[in-house]
């Protein structure tokens, strides 16, 4: 998947200012950066929830112009949005039923989910909104597991969850990517995701200002978050 010089925004307010990004199969690309930098917007552009003003979104070299999110999810781009990507007023089982719209069979989804997260199996009939935060995120992740996507887009997976659960979830993300699936992760909680990713970018003010090896970037991160420049640091 590729973003080429993409600009986009909400109404009259521009957010993305020429984003270039490339995601290869099997990659875990961590998109980091401070609040309001345009990370989530980038993700929404990739899932076509937001229109592109200029530039292009390409998947396998083909332009995705005019394709709506429903179709995108059917061709294997799985987006798990910020917050919990579940339907709180449906039961766990029913949440899985909705996932079948992607074209996957209910059986496959159920097997994949309950194998991986046995505790969800015991809560089949429970309303998803009454699950714990971690379980909700597991349920959301089961879409990535059960529907065999080609590309996985994750927004703020760690939000509001205990570090241990976050670690487990990223372990799963890592395994998913090993099956040859490209994963784009948007995170503020940088340390955890850098451990599993093999590529990272820092996004500030609608631009990816640095891109490269996660370990290298880690050092620059605090500068990006706190707004200090290289120069200031050398003076210290």
């Amino acid at each position, binding site marked *: 998947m590729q973003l080429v010089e993409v600009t986009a925004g909400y109404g009259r307010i521009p957010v993305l200012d020429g984003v270039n990004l490339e995601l290869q199969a099997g990659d875990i690309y961590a998109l980091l950066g401070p609040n309001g930098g345009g990370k989530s917007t980038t993700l929404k552009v990739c899932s076509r929830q937001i229109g592109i003003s200029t530039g292009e979104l390409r998947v396998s070299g083909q332009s995705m112009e005019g394709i709506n999110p429903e179709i995108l*999810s059917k061709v294997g781009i*799985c*987006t798990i*949005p910020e917050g919990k*990507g579940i*339907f709180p007023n449906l039961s766990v089982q029913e949440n899985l039923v*909705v996932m079948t*719209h*992607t074209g996957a069979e209910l059986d496959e989804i159920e097997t994949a989910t309950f194998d991986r997260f046995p505790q969800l199996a015991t809560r089949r009939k429970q309303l998803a909104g009454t699950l714990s935060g971690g379980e909700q995120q597991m349920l959301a992740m089961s879409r990535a597991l059960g529907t065999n996507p080609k590309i996985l887009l994750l927004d703020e997976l760690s939000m509001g969850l205990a570090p241990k659960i976050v670690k487990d979830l990223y372990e799963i993300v890592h395994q998913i990517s090993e099956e040859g699936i490209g994963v784009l992760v948007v995170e503020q909680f940088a340390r955890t995701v850098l451990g599993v990713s093999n590529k990272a970018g820092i996004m500030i003010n609608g631009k990816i200002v640095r891109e490269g090896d996660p370990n290298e970037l880690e050092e620059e991160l605090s500068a990006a978050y706190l707004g200090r420049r290289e120069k200031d640091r050398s003076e210290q």
Partner: protein
Amino acid sequence: MTELVTFTVVGLAIGSIYSIASAGLVVTYTTSGIFNFAHGAIGMFTAFIYWQLRWDAGWGGQWPAPIAMLFVLFVVAPIIGIFLQLVVMRGLEGTNETTKLVIPIAVMLAFIGGTNWIWQDLESRIPEPFFGRESKWSIGDAYITTHQTIVVVTALLLALFLKFLLTNTRIGITMRAVVDNRELVQLNGGKPDFAALLSWAIGAMMAAVAGILISPLLGSLNVLALTLLVVNAYAAAIFGRLKNLPLTFMGGLVIGLAVSYWNWLSGTGRKWPWLSELRSAIPVVILFVILILLPQERLRGSSLAKYRESFKVPTIKSSITWGAIFIIFISALTLILENKWEFSLAKGIGFAIIGLSMVLLTGYAGEINLAPLAFAGIGAISAYQFDVGSGVETGAGFATLAVFLAAFFGYLVFPAFGLARARLWGAVSVFTIGVLGLVTIFDGTSGTGIASRESMSFSGLIVAALIAGAIGAVVAVPALRLRGLYLGLATFAFAIFVDKMVYKQRQTLSLDIPFIGDGKDVTFNVFNNGALNIPRPGFFGIDFRKNQSAMLILLTITFSLIAILLVILRRSTYGRQLSAMKDSPAACATLGLNMLKLKLSVFTLAAAIAGFGGALHASNLRAIQEDAPFTVFEGLALFMLTVVSGIGYISGALIGGILYGTAFLVMGDFWDKLANDWSSFDWLFTVIHDFFIFLGPAMAGIGLGRNPNGIAAQIFDGYRILKEESNRTLLSIGVAATTCFWIFRITDVIDGWTFLLLFVPTLLLCPLIAEAKKKDLETEKMHPLELIGIDHSYTDQIVEDLNKELNLPFSHPKDFEDRSH
């Protein structure tokens, strides 16, 4: 025993129909998040169509029952549902709660208007039950008709079908998922639009089933009665909290049984004459009680950014100026208008005064009240009772009553103004003494007989306001914990309650009131045979009885005064508190604002304004009837038009009131006149005339409801541009032209219609021209910002424009200099 069985069966049958209707309501609500106020009206409309196909002697008629049924259920109803979703409801996503309430109300009025239009002759239409009236079977001595059996079985089958659809099929689960998170359904590959279409189609079908099944139980088809009957299902839907289908079905049965057993107990209302109409009010009483018993909603900070509404607050100075201009303008018009038109205009302004209560309550404080006219009606009745109805000499007792009411009113309203305790009591005392003074001055409480009074007294108006205010408070107390849709439904229930229990009340109330009536009982005839003759006022030494111009000016002055008062209120600390409460109750709670006091006071105040306006409006009309002008449906129409006009603005109330009270009638008259003048195009003009009369308000609501700020804002923007320097010529041409028309009319050069045809377009065209001109200028000026100043030097004007464009604080270079000194 036989009776028990009979009434149980009747109750179950009616309850089953309520269940079906409410299930449809729940399906649309859970899948679209919109409470379909039009649900009852859809049921009514389809029942009429079914009647037309099945029994009409002319067109249609004599279709076999199964075919007519299938046609209505599987062709007409789905088309209605799909059409509504595609054309009207789909655009409601992301709008605020008031808009989501108003548009379905407009749709409901459209169905009512449309049905009245299509089936306008007054023939009686009697639908027969299935298999005729004689088809029945018996348990012991009790008979059960085949129709009742069919009703109950249908309800059971539909319940099972819906349960299966929504929990066991993929499309059903998707329909529910759409409500939770529409975008996420898309990300899952589902099609939210299709799910919504299906749910609206099913909802309409359920309404149709309910309408067709219930109509034979009513005797002759009646538009409003049928709509209201299905409205009873709202209570059942709330019983299931708008999402739980089994509970909803149970709720429907409970309501049906309650109504039926009440009929049994009270001998169909004969046993306790005071409560004779309670049987039709029971469902709304249940609705009100359930709403109050619902667990309290958590406080929410509504996210302002999501809504596109924003109301500018006028300054006190400008509101006084505009008030004066408005009074002068109307006074000038009275010189040329015929009596008939003055009356129509007065009607509009009367509604506008009542509309001001909604501006305060809904526009400023964000509390939805669907019963504005119920309070107005209470005001009108109170004024009537205290002026002529009681038929006693009023005296000290009257003053005592006014004092009590005033003290109660002050006690409710003043605490919210944040006065310290000592001052609070001071304010209440001053207010009470003030009211006493006014009542004494304008009434002469000397005890001389006013039993034969033929005019409304000023004190009657004050009492009207105070009583309406007190009742507003009584209604508000239980409703204080409700917000949004639920508050709307609670007030709606109250409006229906007033319709049934007050307007239809035929009893005479005898009271022994101390100091009044010389120890004898005072009798009030609550709603005298369905009509009250409200006298015109007679104060200030002016006889308003024959002088329509004076009445119009009185209403205008009243409107302006209350409007200025509201602006002062809005600009005060109190007004800012109201506004804060509207924006974010959660934030207010954390700031320690006592919202209970605030809500109670604003409800009381708004109800008092409505009561005052209602009394004055009624006295302009000279009479009120049980079915006009203060009924629940008229209240909904006025609410809708005020919202459409801009409920956050004083002018919104004015435009809404005039639209409702004047404009559509005058337009109707206009086409009527054309139909008379050109008889060859008679049919065309009659159709247009009927359109305005029957569908005007509803269409205005549906068409304009999308703009959250209302029409008032747009009109104002236009006139604001007119005031700019570059438009001086246009403005003076406009003023000159309107003055000329006025002079022509007063000297009888042109007749009334010509005047109207010249005058109104001029008023509307001037701002439009100014706006178009401004747009032209703007497109000319559209240099990219960075290129400005390259070819010529910066002027103050350019700097100003740049600041404006970049959203920088607006600063005059002159101010700069002043400050630097």
